[in-house]
């Protein structure tokens, strides 16, 4: 599956409204930007390959759908630290396949990663991740209105 490049027209449209995820993408993606970016199954680089993902939201949550074909769920790690969601995965080859020799060089194995800067209104206690049919589903529930709001009392001198 080929990643879809976001075109400039859509980018402009997205930039016009407040988009908490956009800030992250622009900042972090350049770290992994490479002229010859490794793909989902075909990579030979030693550095981690970029995981491609769709991001969406509804009233209750943000949703990340990351493409990780042919993985074992034990080899996928999801964490949140300092407001950044990290997805890390590793594809290991079965021993029988290693013996085939030729294949190892061609098929994608190794490390994959992706980071997203999260908006402030994510309820980190309720983040949920599932792996099914080659897609990692991460649901990030939004805090209820008011939870992230706090009145600060102004004291006199």
């Amino acid at each position, binding site marked *: 599956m*080929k990643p879809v490049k976001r075109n400039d027209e859509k980018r402009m449209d997205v930039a016009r409204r407040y988009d908490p995820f956009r800030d992250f993408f622009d900042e972090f993606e350049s770290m992994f930007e490479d002229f010859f970016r490794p793909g989902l199954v*075909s990579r030979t680089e030693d550095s981690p390959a970029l995981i*491609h*993902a*769709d991001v969406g939201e509804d009233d209750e949550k943000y949703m990340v759908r990351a493409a990780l074909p042919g993985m074992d769920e034990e080899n996928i790690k999801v964490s949140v630290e300092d407001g950044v969601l990290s997805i890390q995965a590793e594809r290991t080859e079965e021993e029988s396949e290693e013996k085939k020799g030729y294949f190892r060089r061609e098929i994608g194995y190794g490390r994959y990663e992706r980071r997203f800067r999260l908006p402030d209104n994510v309820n980190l206690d309720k983040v949920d991740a599932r792996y099914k049919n*080659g897609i990692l589903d991460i649901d990030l529930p939004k805090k209820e209105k008011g939870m992230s709001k706090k009145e600060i009392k102004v004291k006199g001198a």
Partner: protein
Amino acid sequence: MTVIALNRCYPGIREKEAGIEAVVGRTDEGFEVRAALPGVDKEKITLLVDSGRLVIKALRESSFAQGREIRRELAQGEMKKEYYLPESVDVDNVSARFENGLLTVRLPLRQQSGPRAVSIE
């Protein structure tokens, strides 16, 4: 990327259409194609093989049944990959499995019979 690997290592298999990311590898019995189809339902994959051709077609729905899309990086809709196969592929014994969004197609080669003496009439 795939094309380079194919042409360099396996001149027998050539890529015709590249709508799906896939790699071809050499195995003991022949070739193996691994195609990345994350989030595609097995029922939405069509695999066609005849003498000289392998076609993989797939349909992928949107990641979000409800809600608003903020960013799209994964392909949606119809996807197609097509290879020209060498004649030595044993078309009758091609098999495939789909697991965790990865389609693996095994393309065994016909058993090569050794040299045979031909009687002269």
